[in-house]
């Protein structure tokens, strides 16, 4: 049954409703929204002077109107302790999204907790402590004290390496400058914790070390560049579903020709042909279909390469471009390293050091090392040679008037979570550098991104490179205390089957030890925990907004606030920084993460003093923050004093693009694109090329797995399920559509195994098993599937082996397994649609 809300009218926003700047916190795009709040006993009217829009709402509004909102954009929430009405709707004046809302962001209001409408009652409201064999709500003081005492005992006795930390490093909800600073100060300044990992991967590392090592920051262009490019390249990314409004508002408008006037205005004196787009993806995504609709199929090139062969493809394109003389020698001379570096002895298998796996060198050295013919690449990648040649032409062949082609390359998890991540990332940057497409309008070689960014922490050099593979430490019995900030490895790690087994066992040891001293006092409890930890147990503290599967193994659970419930600053994929204002209270007694970190620090200080460690305790001073604004000023604000909440508030949903260049009046002057002056982020200001030839499927265990199992288990996000999964697991609209994670399968593959649409299947291999719902997909190749990632009801990570790249980046994408049916379509999945996801007129 299609889920229906049965809402036939909504309260009207009164003309005098309070207006707040909001930014969607679900993905990197960071669409601008406005949040309106007003008292319960007031409502607007249909007359223009009675509503916020100044519009006659007794009439039907036309398409793209500002004066409409859907039921999902309305809720009743608490503000300063009182129930108020809330509408959160896309902001037509935000240059990011121009009023577009996505199926995720346009549900922000509905995904706030409400004791009145009953939404998101899964939210944590009070600190919980494992006590009397279950979770009991308690005070912050009590919970902080237990965390502080146990953590202090373990780090004092055994050292800080015994404290393992999983923490967000991003912006948006569960992150942002306030919260990355609060946590960063605790673990990287008061302590020097090195066994630390990030929310979606088992180590504390960049996902794109290569581009940074080459001197090219990964978010180097402006969203506007997608409107100005002659050719757009989506390499290992699916922007319609994963960066929705960036794609719709900036890529599609270029492909449709809507931005042609802008091109003529901003880039006069050169030809502006119909824009084209190239997709590199083993799967035909809905992005490909949308691009064909917008630009015509002739202007869309999809290269459905064999999984993990991107490096061969990129090197062939690079080689071809250079052989044709389409590279930009002037730029290479002026802005890149000109002397070839000595190749390491084990090149290309190893770099100069474990932490430097690639070879950064000159243009010529890279051309020589990476040489790959189009035909060879066609063979490796499984796509026609003429299509590879066409891709090279679209990327770099000069325009009809001889002008250089403006090409933007966007890449994401297909590269990041794929084979030979480091060299492949570098190979894409090589193409952009050679063709002078960085720092130029219509150019860029950028991560498409996941969450917004919002990283401000003390230096993390002590973590080392390669960083510790924390999940393997946890599996191997290492570490005694685990602090977790908005992470759920149970859904978002590799080798998850084994991880969960080990984690359950180790945390249960501590739960049992706590249960065994139920009648004892606090001292006896701490002692019992410490003993259990020394015997291999793990004491876990989980900071989150909901109680997730891993949190259910924790011993202390601390409730956090999310965006809208606190003031939070972040930047989006074009480095656009905004202040998302607080417009409601967090649920119950939940707090911003930065203030939770402060509470833990203060408890640690007290506990260390009690242990007689005064000098150590001194390191935990400096957390007397009352609000998140204090944490912001202590962190980001100390380095960028011109960036204040006041200024950001005035800049609204458009903010400014980091880094700040100074202040003019009330405005912070920003930086639309990086490297416009040709000076890169390296010691000498010159960018490096990556000499990194194709080396085959190099992740340990993957080649064997590929030969052994019949199905490629490609995986990723869907439009509906993204970084909002943790809330959407409690959203009726979403669960009605995807009661299980789908697995897209070729219909003939399904028939051979007796699987029909909606059947529950098990994906299994020697790493483990996971369940999914079969979704027949005509465009899926035989033997290729695509499974929704990160679902609470079927975790793809269960079947991913533990193999990582040299810098401990997981390789979720290259997974092979077998599939068997385990049930006819379960009741919850009966009646849902199994039609093609591709728009067709």
């Amino acid at each position, binding site marked *: 049954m299609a889920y229906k809300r049965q809402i036939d009218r909504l309260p009207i926003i009164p003309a005098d409703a309070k207006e707040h700047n909001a930014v969607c916190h679900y993905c990197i795009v960071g669409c601008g929204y406005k949040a309106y709040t007003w008292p319960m006993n007031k409502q607007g009217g249909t007359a223009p002077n009675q509503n916020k829009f100044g519009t006659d709402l007794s009439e039907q509004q036309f398409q793209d109107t500002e004066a409409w909102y859907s039921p999902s954009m309305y809720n009743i929430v608490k503000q300063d302790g009182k129930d108020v009405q809330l509408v959160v709707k896309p902001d037509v004046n935000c240059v990011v999204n121009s009023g577009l809302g996505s*199926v995720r962001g346009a549900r922000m209001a509905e995904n706030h907790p409400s004791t009145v409408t009953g939404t998101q009652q899964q939210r944590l409201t009070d600190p919980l402590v494992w006590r009397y064999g279950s979770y009991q709500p308690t005070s912050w003081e009590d919970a902080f004290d237990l965390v502080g005492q146990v953590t202090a005992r373990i780090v004092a006795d055994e050292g800080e390496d015994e404290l393992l930390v999983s923490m967000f490093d991003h912006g948006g909800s569960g992150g942002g400058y306030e919260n990355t600073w609060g946590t960063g100060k605790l673990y990287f300044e008061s302590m020097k914790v090195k066994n630390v990992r990030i929310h979606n991967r088992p180590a504390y590392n960049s996902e794109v070390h290569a581009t940074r090592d080459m001197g090219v920051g990964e978010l180097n262009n402006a969203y506007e560049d997608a409107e100005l490019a002659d050719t757009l390249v989506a390499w290992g990314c699916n922007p319609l579903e994963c960066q929705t409004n960036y794609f719709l508002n900036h890529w599609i408008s270029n492909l449709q020709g809507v931005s042609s006037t802008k091109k003529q205005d901003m880039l006069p004196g050169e030809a502006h042909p119909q824009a084209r787009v190239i997709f590199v993806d083993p799967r035909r995504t809905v992005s490909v279909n949308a691009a064909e609709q917008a630009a015509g199929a002739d202007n869309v090139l999809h290269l459905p390469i064999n999984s993990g062969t991107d490096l061969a493809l990129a090197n062939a394109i690079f080689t071809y471009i250079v052989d044709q003389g389409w590279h930009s020698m002037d730029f290479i001379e002026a802005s890149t390293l000109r002397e070839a570096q000595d190749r390491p002895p084990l090149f290309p298998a190893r770099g100069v050091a474990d932490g430097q796996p690639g070879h950064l060198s000159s243009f010529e050295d890279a051309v020589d090392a990476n040489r790959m013919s189009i035909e060879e690449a066609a063979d490796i990648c499984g796509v026609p040679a003429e299509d590879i040649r066409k891709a090279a032409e679209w990327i770099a062949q000069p325009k009809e008037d001889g002008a250089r082609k403006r090409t933007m390359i966007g890449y994401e998890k297909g590269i990041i979570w794929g084979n030979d991540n480091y060299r492949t990332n570098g190979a894409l940057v090589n193409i952009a550098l050679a063709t002078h497409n960085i720092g130029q309008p219509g150019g860029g070689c950028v991560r498409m991104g996941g969450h917004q960014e919002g990283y401000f922490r003390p230096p993390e050099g002590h973590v080392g490179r390669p960083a510790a593979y924390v999940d393997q430490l946890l599996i191997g019995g290492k570490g005694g205390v685990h602090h977790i900030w908005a992470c759920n490895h149970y859904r978002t790690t590799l080798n998850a089957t084994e991880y969960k087994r080990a984690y359950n066992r180790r945390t249960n040891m501590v739960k049992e030890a706590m249960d065994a001293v139920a009648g004892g006092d606090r001292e006896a409890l701490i002692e019992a925990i410490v003993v259990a930890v020394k015997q291999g147990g793990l004491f876990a503290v989980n900071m989150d907004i909901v109680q997730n599967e891993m949190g259910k193994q924790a011993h202390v659970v601390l409730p956090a606030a999310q965006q809208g419930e606190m003031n939070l600053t972040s930047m989006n994929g074009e480095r656009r920084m905004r202040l998302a204002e607080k417009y409601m209270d967090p649920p119950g007694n939940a707090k911003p993460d930065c203030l939770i970190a402060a509470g833990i620090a203060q408890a640690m200080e007290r506990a260390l003093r009690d242990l007689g460690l005064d000098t150590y305790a001194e390191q935990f001073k400096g957390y007397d923050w009352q609000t998140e604004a204090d944490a912001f000023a202590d962190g980001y604000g100390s380095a960028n004093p011109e960036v204040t909440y006041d200024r950001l508030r005035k800049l609204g949903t458009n903010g400014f693009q980091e880094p700040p260049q100074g202040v003019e009046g009330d405005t912070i002057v920003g930086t639309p694109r990086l490297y416009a002056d040709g000076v890169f982020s390296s010691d000498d200001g010159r960018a490096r090329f990556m000499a990194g030839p194709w080396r085959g499927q190099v992740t340990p265990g993957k080649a064997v797995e590929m030969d052994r199992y019949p199905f490629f288990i490609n995986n990723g996000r869907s439009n509906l399920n993204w970084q909002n999964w943790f809330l959407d697991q409690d959203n009726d609209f979403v669960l009605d559509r995807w009661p299980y994670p789908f697995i897209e399968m070729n219909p003939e593959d399904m028939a051979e195994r007796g699987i029909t649409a909606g059947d529950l299947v098990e994906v299994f291999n020697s790493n483990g098993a996971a369940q999914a719902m079969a979704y027949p997909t005509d465009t899926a190749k035989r033997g290729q599937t695509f499974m929704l990632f990160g679902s609470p009801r079927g975790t793809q990570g269960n079947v991913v082996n533990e193999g990582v790249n040299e810098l401990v980046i997981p390789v979720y994408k290259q997974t092979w397994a077998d599939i068997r049916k385990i049930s006819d379509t379960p009741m919850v999945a009966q009646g849902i649609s199994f039609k093609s996801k591709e728009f067709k007129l």
Partner: protein
Amino acid sequence: MKCNKLVDAGRRQFLRGGLMASAGAAAATVAGTSEAEAKPALARVDYPANRLANMADLAVNEPMDVAYPDADSPGVLLKLGEAVEGGAGPDGDIVAFSVLCPHKGWFLNYNADDRTLNCPGHYSRFDAEAGGQQVWGHATHNLPQFVLRVDDSGDIYAEGVDELIYGRLSNTL
């Protein structure tokens, strides 16, 4: 149903706004629509019972333009040939939906091949055989479906709507 010219115009206008949704034009094709009195004092809107068509007017899988609850709310009436969710009539196969996309209000197009309603705005699609469930898309609710009743003479009446129609904060204006 919705003429392709409109779709193309819409496409050119993408993100420029200002395209007139030709609700009036759609209404012109509708027989027998009568206005209802809204009664705002009630807790829920009071839906009119409007005759949309007669069974005899419908052919299987041929969409008919309708409007409900008033002329400014265009919809589509369909006989699908097989019993479906929310289906009315002796065969349980007659359904009607709003054709204003619940994302940003663009006109949906009926694709008779796989019986979906498709939006040229941003590529959303809805399944006419599954209660208007969004197969894929940006709308945060499924397609508003009109509640139908078929009387003994085969007259088809719409009597309610199960979601908020795009472009109005009350389903009856």
